[in-house]
Structure formats: C-alpha cells, structure tokens
C-alpha cells in the first residue's frame, strides 16, 4: 500500500532536484552545442557553411563580403563550424540568450583576411 512512502521520504530529506534558474546557472558541458560565432577577420567567404547548413540560415556573398546569419532559424547542429576550412566559424559552449525580437546578424568584412570592417546588427538585441 505505502509503496511511494520511501521515495517521498527520500525526496523530503534529500537535496532539491531542481535549480533556482536565473540565480543558479549550471555551467554548460564541455562540448555542448551552443551559439555560432563567426570571426569575420579571418573568414574567407567561401560559402561552404551556407551550402552545408540544413536549415539554410546562413547566406554568404563573396563579392560584397558579407556573412549573414539568422539565429532564429539555426538548429545548432554544428555542421557549419565543422566544415569551416578557415576556422573562422566557431560553435560556442553557451547557448544564445532568449530574445524578444527576431534579429538577423550581418557581418561585413573584406575578402582579404588582413583588414576587418564594420560589424552591423540590423536590429539590436533587447536586454
């Protein structure tokens, strides 16, 4: 009859199973697949990431030297970062923070990897 009682007592006496999230944040695991970051200084605009992306959230224009990325469509599979030959695309360990408005990340560089250029984000992220 009282089969649940040991479990209930254990729960009562033991630690809490949950975390008080905004105050206590568990660090991400070492190879967690988080946000995608592009180091535009060394990007060669080869377009491999855009071709391989299964959700087609990356667009690269070689002539204009822009790399645009839609984080809302990204599924964080990490294929782009794995296939990046120049090593400019990196997948971070931490997830993207929640956001209120959708944004498009557009990075502009020059095709020669020496000089960098402006970095613009079309809609600023809300805090």
């Amino acid at each position, binding site marked *: *009859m009282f*089969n*649940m009682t*040991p*479990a*209930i007592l*254990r729960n009562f006496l033991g630690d809490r*199973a949950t975390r008080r999230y905004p105050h206590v944040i568990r660090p991400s*695991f*070492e*190879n*967690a*697949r988080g946000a995608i970051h592009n180091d535009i200084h060394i990007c060669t605009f080869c377009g491999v990431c855009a071709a*391989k*992306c*299964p*959700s087609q959230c990356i667009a690269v224009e070689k002539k204009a030297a822009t790399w645009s990325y839609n984080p809302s469509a990204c*599924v*964080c*599979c*990490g*294929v782009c970062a*794995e296939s990046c030959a120049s090593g400019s695309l990196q997948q971070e360990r931490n997830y993207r923070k929640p956001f209120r408005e959708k944004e498009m990340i557009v990075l502009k560089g020059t095709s020669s990897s020496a000089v960098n250029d402006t970095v613009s984000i079309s809609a600023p992220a809300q805090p």
Partner: protein
Amino acid sequence: MTKTIIPFGPQHPVLPEPIHLKLTLEDEVITEAIPAFGFVHRGLEKLVEIRDFHQMIYVVERICGICSMLHAMCYCQGIEEMMGIEVPPRARFLRVIWSELHRMHSHLLWLGLFADSFGFESLFMQFWKIREKILDIDEATTGNRIIVSVNVIGGVRKDLGTEQTSMILSALKDVEKELQWLETTIMSDYTVQKRTVGKGILTGKQAYELGLVGPTLRASGVAQDARMLGYAAFGDINFTPVVETDGDCYARCKVRFREVFQSIDLIRQAIGKLPNGEIAVKVKGRPNGEVVTRVEQPRGEVFYYIKANGTKNLERLRVRTPTFANVPALLTMLPGAWLSDVPVIVLSIDPCISCTER
C-alpha cells in the same frame, strides 16, 4: 439507449500531442472511436527535393524529438546500404550506446506520462527526475539533450573517451538504483493495478494481424523486435526481446519498464566491448537505387523506404513511423472500454503524433 458523441482532444490534459478522437458512447461505454489527424502535419518527406542527402539527416531527426537519434540512424543505414559503405566497428557500437540512451529517456518520459494519465502525479515527477540524468549524459557526450545529431553517413560525429564512458556507467548505476526504488510502486501498487490491469486487451493474434509494432506488440506475446536483425552492433551483443503475454495496459507498462533495465544492460555490454579505431569513413559519390531499412525505436519498428537517382537530392523518402502502425490498435481497443479508461488506453500505445503525421 441514445448515443452521445464526445470529442476527445486535440487539446486534452493527458495528451502530449494533438490527436482528436471522436468517441461515440452508449451510456459510459464507447461503441466507436474515429481518430482525426492533421494538426501537426509538416510534410517533411517533401523536403528531399530541396535538401541534399547529407542535410536530410538533420531533417529526419526532427520528425520526432524523442526518437531523433534513431530516425537519423535508420536513414544513415539506408544510405550506407545503398552506397555500399562499411561503417567502422567503433561507430557501430557508439550508435548502440546512444540509441539505447534514447530508448531509456523515451521510456522514462512515457512512464511518467502514463502515471500522469491515471492521475499519479508524484510518480510522474519521479520518473522525469530520473530521466534528467540520461539527458545530462546526452548533453555531455553529444552536445545536445534530445536532438543529439551524432549520426553522419559513414559513421558518427562524436567519440567517447574513457572518462566519458566511466561517467556514463556511474550515471547509469544511479539511474538503475533509483528505478529499482520505484519498481514496487509501478509494478505492484494498488492504484496502478486497479487502473491498468485488464484494460485495453489485445490478443497476440489481433496484435499481429493489425500489424502493430514495438512494446504494444510485445506485450501481447509476440517476440518481434527489429533489434533482432542485428543492425549497428546488436548482432555482436547479447540481446533477447522483452515479452509479456497479458496484452493489457499493465503488460505494456511492464514491457517498457523492463526495457529500461535491458537498455542499461545493453549499454554496459556495448561499452565493455567498445573496439578502438575510426569513428567515420569518408563518403564519396552519390546514392542510387532504392532501399528499405528498419530500426527499432522506443515505440516500435520504424521503416524507411529511400529511392535515389544518382543526384544529390533523393527522389523519394518514405517514413513509416511506429505510431502510424499502432493507431489501428486504438480503434480495436477503445470500443467496449469505459470513457474514464480512454486516457490510459490511448497513452498505452505511446502515441507520438508528430511522428505519425511527419
């Protein structure tokens, strides 16, 4: 007796996903049940026309969140068979480990939902608490909790180091211990038995003729499990399917509960025998021809039909998911049941509607 028609779903507290059942009742007894679908149909099979066959791995993973790894594994096996790729032994064993982890967390999710379907909320929370440990293993080893994305054509993307395998083994030890604490509750509690024993009975003959798959079929005494085909490394490890003979909701619950322990055993075996070597081979060329392939998912056998024509896009991808095969069971089990048993019976086939409609 006048007939009453009660719409059950698409939004109902016990249903994890939207399915609508039109129940015709006489008094409190159901005389007819007609399901209606179409709430989550996405047409993912159609995407083969615009995604190439490598990108499709990530699409088929999203057919169903809970069995994502097994969808991808089935798809990759199909393409590998078509292109004649030999998967390295280590990759085959790693696939077993992750697929069994997936089966465990799916069954624990279901055990929780099932407890919830007869109102046992605290048991529901207990199972989900245990499940969290499995999800942590997934995240630590693959980088994601549910959609692990480890399969590629020709092998796997991630490797397990000795540190990680020992972490898995010690976490599984905890999971096993905690599950054993709950064993008496789920297996011999008065409330659980009262709500599940003798409800929704399917005989072995009925279940076989309806073409049912997975635990729903095995609870009726038919030992059919696609893992017996020996795909991935299941041929190299010791495996016998879990079978129960009663064919009611309680037997289905028992099969799934025992399968969790079986999965722990299979992971231990696979880690023990894990060979060294490569984890993936390079893939050259494009698939051509047609192939059928099967994998045992937590809910049952998934069936893929793939047709390719030598271009980078496949010609046709057809997925028969386990719930798709198990829905006819509902139409047989529900007539004659009481209205108050409908949630238990519907949940007992482990319905995954996203799978069904794709």
